């Protein structure tokens, strides 16, 4: 308990110590200023723009920015779909794996393009090295870069003054990959290789176990993909069991590095925001709101995992280490809980334990983390612009109470922004509740759910929350490969991504054009503790209230049933 707390604290310190300077660095990168890496990377960047031709780097109106983003993502999807369907014809397929089925390829391509990285397949049994390295790893980079670019553009909208443009998508993409994702993932990959993660194009290795059985040990170019899967909050593992696999996450150090990488860029975004709007306190306030929600979630998960299942108390089962079902002994309840909280709060989705085996209350927190819209740090970029949506709603709801038209950073929040915010907000209940309800009654969908009762409902809710929130983690026990689910989940992932991004870019566009009013004593303060608390409450009430009835039938019902001695 004490050592766990110490590890949590150490983690928090490392995270802030790295995210703070990274935020400043990223702000300089995206404002086109000189940075540490400029001497090396600036010529490369210039070369790319020169190749792209004249005018490729001009400022874009939000509509053009959104269109560029959509076209780029569509192209990425087509390419990935083609690779997955044609992998048997492509190189680097030593195991001779067959092409993916159309519905699974659709689902997988959508999943990686939207930064969800939901895996309705098992990596080592389905995908060739080419599919993993060229297809998936490339999307790991560019889908993360898309999120970063959009968030930077949205922040520009809040920071700008009478501007028509919110930046250039291609420039933002180039800089995200070149200055942020590539350097950090190279460092991460090297550390992981040092810690024993394989990085090879060689075939799987046959081994003879102690019992004399033959086992084929999967390997491949894992380290490079794992570094970016964490850094880009992708989460798609190289191996099926993700970061609980000993080759994907071999040591305590690799575990710590991956944990830090999960939240690094999302946390840095808060500080980047403070830099770009020229008011650090604004960024710190948002970081505080995210941080406190994170800690509350972690406390509940860790508490209930450590407590374990009270029904076991009467049985001769040792629960000193807490609920250890589905957990790696080397990580224990503490590091598993931390990972579970981090991976669902950030829309990462990689796991180092099996969420399906968590206590019901822990499951509730994991679900809520996703259902509030992946805004507690959230995905790279995506979490931050998601939180800005909540900021807009908070300011609108509470701002009226100070007797002025609500404003944030001096920009008035008016009918148009509210309309767009509501539009963006609708994607979560549609993806989770409407699609989830379809999955709960359609016979072909229900057949794919392993467990009955509240736990089964939790599995459905989890799957659709994960897809719509672009998280990608899963409650096992949910047959995601059924065509019903691959298709509907694919739609949910697109909805959660693009039906959110486009209105947010539109908000950025309308805000960019406004003249900010200077702050005065009559201005709604958005940096103090009061605002932090208010923002958290709005996240919980607007995000939480929407899903409370469904959750009551899922994890809450399961929890109270467990108290009454019934398990599912």
């Amino acid at each position: 308990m004490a050592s766990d707390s110490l590890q949590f604290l150490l983690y928090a310190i490392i995270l802030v110590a790295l995210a703070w300077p990274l935020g400043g660095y990223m702000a300089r990168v995206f404002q086109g200023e000189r940075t540490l890496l400029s001497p090396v990377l600036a010529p490369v960047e210039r070369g790319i723009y020169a190749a792209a031709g004249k005018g490729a780097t001009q400022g874009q109106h939000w509509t053009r920015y959104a269109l560029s983003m959509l076209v780029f993502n569509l192209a990425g999807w087509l390419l990935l779909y083609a690779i997955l369907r044609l992998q048997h014809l492509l190189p680097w397929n030593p195991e001779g794996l067959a092409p993916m089925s159309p519905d699974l390829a659709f689902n997988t391509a959508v999943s990686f393009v939207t930064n969800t990285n939901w895996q309705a397949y098992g990596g080592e049994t389905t995908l060739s090295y080419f599919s993993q390295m060229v297809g998936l790893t490339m999307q790991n980079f560019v889908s993360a870069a898309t999120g970063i670019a959009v968030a930077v553009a949205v922040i520009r909208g809040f920071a700008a003054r009478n501007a028509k443009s919110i930046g250039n998508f291609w420039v933002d993409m180039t800089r995200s990959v070149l200055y942020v994702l590539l350097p950090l993932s190279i460092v991460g990959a090297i550390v992981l290789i040092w810690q024993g993660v394989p990085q090879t194009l060689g075939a799987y290795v046959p081994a003879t176990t102690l019992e004399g059985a033959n086992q084929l040990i999967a390997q491949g170019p894992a380290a490079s993909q794992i570094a970016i899967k964490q850094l880009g909050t992708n989460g798609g593992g190289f191996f099926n069991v993700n970061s609980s696999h000993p080759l994907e996450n071999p040591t305590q150090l690799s575990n710590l590095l991956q944990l830090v990488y999960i939240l690094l860029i999302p946390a840095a975004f808060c500080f980047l925001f403070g830099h770009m709007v020229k008011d650090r306190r604004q960024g710190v306030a948002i970081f505080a709101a995210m941080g406190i929600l994170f800690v509350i979630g972690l406390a509940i998960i860790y508490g209930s995992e450590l407590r374990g299942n009270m029904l076991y108390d009467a049985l001769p089962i040792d629960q000193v280490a807490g609920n250890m079902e589905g957990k790696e002994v080397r990580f224990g309840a503490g590091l598993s809980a931390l990972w579970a909280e981090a991976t669902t709060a950030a829309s990462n989705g990689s796991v180092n334990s099996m969420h399906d085996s968590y206590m019901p209350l822990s499951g509730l927190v994991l679900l809520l983390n996703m259902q509030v819209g992946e805004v507690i740090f959230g995905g790279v970029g995506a979490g931050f612009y998601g939180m800005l949506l909540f900021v807009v709603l908070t300011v609108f709801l509470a701002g009226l109470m100070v007797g002025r038209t609500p404003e944030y950073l001096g920009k008035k929040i008016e009918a148009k922004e509210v309309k767009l915010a509501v539009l963006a907000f609708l994607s979560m209940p549609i993806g989770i509740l409407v699609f989830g309800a379809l999955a709960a009654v359609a016979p072909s969908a229900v057949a794919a759910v392993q467990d009955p009762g509240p736990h089964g409902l939790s599995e459905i809710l989890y799957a659709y929350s994960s897809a719509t929130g672009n998280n990608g983690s899963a409650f096992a026990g949910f047959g995601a490969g059924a065509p019903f689910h691959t298709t509907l989940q694919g739609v949910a992932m697109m909805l959660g991504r693009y039906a959110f991004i486009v209105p947010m870019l539109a908000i950025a566009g309308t805000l960019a054009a406004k003249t900010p009013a200077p702050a005065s004593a009559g201005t709604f303060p958005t940096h103090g503790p009061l605002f932090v608390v208010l923002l958290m409450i709005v996240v919980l009430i607007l995000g939480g209230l929407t899903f409370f009835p469904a959750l009551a039938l899922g994890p809450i019902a399961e929890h109270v049933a467990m108290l009454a001695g019934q398990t599912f």
Partner: protein
Amino acid sequence: MTKHKRRDFSLFDGALAAHAAQSAVAKLDPRVLYRNPVMFVTGVVAVLTTLIFVRDLAMGAATAGIVGQIAFWLWVTVLFANFAEAIAEGRGKARADSLRATQSETECKRLRGKPTDHEEFEIVSSRALRKDDLILVTAGELIAADGEVIEGVASVDESAITGESAPVIRESGGDRSAVTGGTRLVSDWLVVRVTAEPGKSFLDRMIAMVEGAERQKTPNEIALNILLVGMTIIFLMVVVTLEPFALFSGTSIPVAFLVALLVTLIPTTIGGLLSAIGIAGMDRLVKANVIAKSGRAVEAAGDVDTLLLDKTGTITFGNRMADAFMPVPGVSERELIETALLASFPDETPEGKSIVELARKMLGSQVDVHQEQVANFVPFSAQTRLSGADLTDGSEVRKGASDATLRYAGATASLDLKRIVEGIAKSGGTPLVVARDKRILGVVHLKDIIKPGIRERFAELRRMGIRTVMITGDNPLTAAAIAAEAGVDDFLAEATPERKLELIRKEQNEGKLVAMCGDGSNDAPALAQADIGVAMNSGTPAAKEAGNLIDLDSDPTKLIEVVLVGKQLLISRGALTTFSIANDVAKYFAILPALFITAYPGLQSLNIMDLSSPASAILSAVIFNALVILALIPLALRGVRYTPATAGQLLRRNLLIYGLGGLIVPFVGIKAIDMAVSALALA
């Protein structure tokens, strides 16, 4: 001068309430109801629940009793919301009617020929008047329409509009040329050019603002409505998808219960009161005797960052007044005061009167000089720039500007005199040098007198984050002194209309919202440029056309009140929205355990209010939801209490009252209703 307050209407005036109750029913018409989306949804599900009730009744189902009661309370919810709107409209209408009484059709004399030819007229109805018609009004007659005086001088009783009983002078040319329809000429005659088409007068606009039908929604109201619609859609999804989730969980929820959950979750409280808040806000403005040309202006008033205030009339009394007597060495103060008094006895100017007043006050009972000593009054003339008196004993007393008095005395200024005069000028005052028989005695300090309480008012505005800027034609030195004394944040000295306009543009470029008031035609461009332009009713038609608010009392300090009304309107909306959303938490705890108790008996632990039965819990939540609308009508009409404070303080206080209150009140309320419901065995 007396001022009769416009009659206020008690919150639930019997006749008003009865009429409002009638129109609450009339507003059930779907063509009317659809304009309020939240209530429209409530109405639709009320119909649905009623149909289920009829079916249950026909089939003799045991649930008929509870379904019928839910249906009843859903209808009551809609009716209460309609009633809130109707009573706000009713109060507006009543106010409009009292205004309209002054606007009844009158006969008037329309000139056929030239304005100077008063014999050539025809008698026509006021309704037949068109813009640019000329009418002749004589003493005792009502002025038939809004217009501009083009000939004549007359005193006009404007009490019907302003509540001010003292008549005011209206004359052609200058800034006192505007007359308002419905006011009465007390003396003389006027030729008036009609400036408004029938039905477009200021009074008509005022009436339209307070009558609900014509009311345009204000920008924030529209934005809030969008949010409420969004929340309604979300909760529709929540409730509709709950049945599939329940089916998966092996249970089914009666439709009436789902409906109850829906109606308690969607923001019915704020949805039902939103338009009443808007109408009541407009009504408060009318009560302050201000006409808004658009609802947008009222709301924008709450957003004002910078107030431009004319010095004269707003910050200071119109005239300079004597403040001190400062003798030169060798002259006693008493001698100076007595001489100044003698020089001012017959002086009817405000300055003269103020000298008499101050001298009397300072001398008290020891006054040795009398008006009878004055033989001959010497009035101010442009040549001498002096005034004073020749006394019965043959001596001369004079007062005037420093250079003029010195010229009269044939003297050059002593160092002491120079020091005194310059000191007064530097402090923003006007020095008036007094002499007796060509001997300089000293100086009277005339100064602008700051209105009492105005300094505190500005401090208050500063706390609210509003910057005040004083506009004056004075030189910068004088302006700075007055600005410092009045406590304004900034000033514009030697102001011309162009410089005013420039200042407004500069502030607006910084993203600030600017309010100003004005009356002259040369104010019109600035009034039009400002975000809030309050035109004085006594001002020229051009000024009134340019402003977006018109103050019928022509009181420049009204600007401050307008800002407060705007803020209160926004706060009321925000507070009730917060209250409405916070209510949902308790409703979940009431209804959810009741819905799922059969599927998962363990969920009874969510029933933290310990409500007696599932049916009672659901019914109590629905009843609470309806009653809370009724309970909040007075607050919606009156507006949330607003005391000027910083945004942080306001937020803390309102969050505590309406946020935390909104969280707690329904727990108490639903529990109380549940106890009543089970005591009466209703469910």
